[in-house]
């Protein structure tokens, strides 16, 4: 009787592995971005004095945090990353404008179920949507892994969320994960794998699964996980990634099981300034808004832009509100163009940003001033996250964000949906 994550480690190491074991394991895929990359490469090259790595073909770099650079210092750091990526013969570098690492890495076919994946970014847990063990780590861990192709792990216990029922109209996977965060708290899955399962999982698309797993770290989890289904396998096949791991957690193997009835969830927000300060939209409706951000590794996919455009079509963003929309990748952007979504958003008054992290981490493209209020589809509403320490951030679904942009106040999206 094992969890899916125990099976992944056992498969890689060729022996039985149990949650709680400390193991040194080979890493199948390593990726980092222009934010963490400079420190990763400085540690590796200048401090560890490593100038060739054993597996440059397992390494991916995506420039997403400052796309394009917003000052000369950042431009210089990005040049440093490019220089060493080339000298180390790192095989895959997706430069500015390609999109967010957690979106681009699966789009380009780098992810396979059953892999052990590390990323120098906390939202690496997103890739658990593809039944991989994927975890965020810091710069020095990444340097070590680049040098040795291995890393130590504590095999995590699994907290299984068994989901039943179906989401109501106007309620999305983002509302569901916020609801779960509110119930379990910011440390509710501390040090564990947050696994999504149960009969409702079948109804969730690849994009939904990525949204759920993306926020696992906001509950303290080491990784997120969804067992594969036909949709996921089809997505992977279309990217040239063929799955040979289709296992899931055995009944009774999870350390903790939580049951969630999806039909009970309504449109939710995480109110300032913690991700577990979750309330129904109804409780904060009418709060005046200065900025709305639709994008990020949580909710910048085509499915999210479709929902936003359906609400904003033939409507206008309220006067005095800035709506910033940032597609998660070039591919998402192109698809949105083909579907006429970008035109509808522009006509409604949106600003469209370069694919990447956008204003999520407060560097550019919509930094908040003292006292401003934002509705964001991203994953963190911490003090100072998007700019001023005196700004307040509400996390919400793309539908709630779009409805709030129309009204200039936090709004329930259900009255805008057909």
């Amino acid at each position, binding site marked *: 009787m094992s969890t899916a994550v125990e099976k992944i480690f056992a498969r890689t190491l060729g022996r039985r592995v149990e949650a709680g074991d*400390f193991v040194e394991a080979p890493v199948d895929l390593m990726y980092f971005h222009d*934010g*963490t990359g*400079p*420190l990763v490469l*400085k*540690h590796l090259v200048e*401090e*560890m*004095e490593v100038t060739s790595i054993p597996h440059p073909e397992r390494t991916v770099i995506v420039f997403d945090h*400052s796309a394009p650079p917003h*000052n000369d*210092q*950042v431009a210089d*750091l990005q040049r440093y990353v490019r220089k060493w990526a080339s000298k180390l013969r790192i095989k895959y570098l997706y430069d500015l404008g390609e999109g967010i690492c957690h979106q681009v890495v699966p789009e380009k076919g780098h992810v396979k179920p059953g892999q052990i994946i590390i990323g*120098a*970014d*906390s939202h690496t847990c997103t890739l658990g949507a593809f039944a991989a063990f994927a975890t*965020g*780590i*810091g*710069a*020095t*861990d990444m*340097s*070590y892994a680049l*040098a*040795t192709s291995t890393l*130590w792990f504590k095999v995590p216990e699994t907290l299984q969320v068994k989901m039943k029922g179906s989401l109501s109209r106007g309620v999305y996977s983002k509302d569901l994960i916020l609801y779960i965060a509110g119930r379990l708290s*910011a*440390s509710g899955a*501390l*040090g564990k794998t947050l696994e999504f399962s149960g009969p409702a999982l079948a109804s969730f698309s690849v994009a939904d699964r990525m949204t759920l797993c993306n926020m696992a*770290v906001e509950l*303290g989890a*080491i990784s997120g996980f969804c067992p594969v289904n036909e949709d996921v396998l089809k997505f992977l096949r279309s990217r040239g990634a063929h799955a040979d791991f289709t296992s899931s957690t055995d009944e009774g193997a999870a350390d903790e099981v939580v049951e969630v009835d999806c039909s009970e969830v309504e449109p939710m927000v995480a109110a300032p300034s*913690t991700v*577990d300060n979750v309330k129904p939209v109804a409780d904060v409706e009418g709060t005046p808004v200065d900025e709305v951000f639709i994008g990020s590794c949580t909710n910048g996919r085509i499915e999210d832009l479709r929902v936003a455009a359906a609400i904003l079509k033939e409507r206008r963003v309220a006067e005095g509100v800035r709506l910033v929309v940032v597609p998660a990748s070039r591919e998402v952007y192109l698809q949105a163009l083909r579907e006429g979504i970008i035109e509808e958003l522009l006509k409604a008054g949106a600003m469209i940003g370069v694919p990447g992290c956008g204003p999520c*981490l*407060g*560097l550019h493209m919509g930094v908040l001033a003292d006292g401003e209020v934002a509705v964001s589809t991203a994953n*963190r509403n*911490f*003090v*100072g*996250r998007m700019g001023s*320490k005196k700004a307040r951030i509400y996390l919400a679904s793309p539908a709630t964000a779009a409805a709030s942009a129309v009204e200039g106040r936090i709004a329930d999206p259900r009255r805008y949906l057909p």
Partner: protein
Amino acid sequence: MKIRGKVWKFGDDVNTDVIIPARYLRTFDSSVWPQHVMEGIDPEFSKKVQPGDIIVAGRNFGCGSSREQAALAIKLAGIAAVVAESFGWIFFRNAINNGLPAVECPGISKAVETGDLIEIDLEKGVVSTPRGILQIKPYPVFMREILAHGGLVEYFKRKIRGD
């Protein structure tokens, strides 16, 4: 290894954005980071903290981003150790990897207040406080070795590569 110092106490779920916001990260000048440490909670903290002081916190200290500068800002500010009920996992790894003891000690946040003197004895696995002695979760051997080398870079160079 014994660490004795004065306590600065913080609450639960202290996240990396309040430890150091992203806008201060885009530099190799590491002297910038400790100037902004804990700015999101206490803008004066970097001026008040003294070398050898100890941060004590509640649950899930260092949750959020993978930015290693959060651990580095604390270390470079002269903080000798962080003792918490529990840690965000990435922060915990980053701290150990940079030679900053991150000590998991259930009960600590109720046992001490800011200004108290405490002593951490990593060998014996205890923290002595004005209100009694608390047990800490022992590190596995390899983690003690990483700390003893001052971090993962030196551990790699000397222990793994054998420089």
